[in-house]
């Protein structure tokens, strides 16, 4: 029997559930039951919705969300390149293969102040080591021709989960 024996969540209930879990699950033996009780839903409904979101890719991963800074990852570099549109996707696909690169994406430029469109984030414990990794990346991926900037972070003011729920109550 694949039939689900409980109703799916309507849009409003989905927004409320999203709002309830975006800052983390309760740390108690039955977190989904606790959430369900708070929302007036059943535990099975809540778990089913979360499984659906995971299948759909709405939830990318579920687990411990680390503050890397607290574990000694103090050297966080955002490296940005200005790459022509016809070359940027191929380069992004190559850069993502590097073990040093934790995030890699393309963003809109904002001319004239910000000509860069390709981004890599590299998290390390030591600034000199991160700089060496960036140099290696530039050499191995033949990025010398593209203007780039390296922006190390030096202070963290806030890190929480994204707040996407649409003000549902």
């Amino acid at each position, binding site marked *: 029997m694949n039939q689900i024996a409980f109703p799916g969540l309507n849009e409003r209930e989905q927004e409320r559930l*999203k709002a309830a*879990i*975006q*800052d*983390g*699950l309760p*740390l108690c*033996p*039955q*977190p*989904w039951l606790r959430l369900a009780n708070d929302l007036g839903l059943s535990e099975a409904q809540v778990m089913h919705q*979360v499984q659906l*979101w995971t299948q*759909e*890719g*709405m*939830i*990318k*991963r*579920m*687990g*411990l*969300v*680390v*503050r*890397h800074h*607290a*574990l*000694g990852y103090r050297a966080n570099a*955002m490296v940005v390149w200005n790459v022509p549109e016809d070359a940027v996707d191929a380069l*992004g*696909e190559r*850069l*993502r293969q590097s073990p040093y690169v*934790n*995030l*890699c*994406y*393309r*963003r*809109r430029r*904002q001319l004239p*102040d*910000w000509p860069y469109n390709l981004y890599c984030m590299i998290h390390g*414990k030591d600034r000199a080591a991160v700089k060496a990794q960036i140099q290696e990346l530039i050499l191995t991926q033949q990025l010398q021709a593209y203007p780039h*900037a390296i*922006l190390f*972070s*030096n*202070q*963290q*003011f806030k*890190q*929480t*989960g*994204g*707040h*996407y729920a*649409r*003000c549902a109550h």
Partner: protein
Amino acid sequence: MVTSLARRLLDRYQKGLPVCSRPYAVMAAELGVTESELLDCLLHLQQDRVITRVGPVFDHHKAGASTLAALAVPPERLKAIADYVSHFDGVNHNYAREHDFNLWFVVTAGDQDALQNTLKRIETETQMPMLVLPMEKGYHIDLGFKLAWSEDAR
């Protein structure tokens, strides 16, 4: 200090937390401890701010609207402006970086209107040059990477 149980938890469960009635009991069984030891460990990691939370990481695009943004702030006003930016509920990351554009933050919202509204308020209130840099394509986005442990890791 990060205990040996904490390390094993961080190595094993940055992703793949089971969605079941007693997830912490399942995780505890896998790591060979009791459910209450595991919950204690998670509470400590959260209190010590090694983890921000235990739970889902949403896909920015699928979950709603979001963008990276930056401000060029005079250094002496950085802390005050950073605090102002952080006070918005939708701002989930906020960092100082070494550049003329020295304050970098991610704004999230339920939809584009709410997102633009927050950005507009920040720009109007701070009167600082602002970059708004929405993502066009993600090639690789995974901050759940394997941690490198060393004795001085704290």
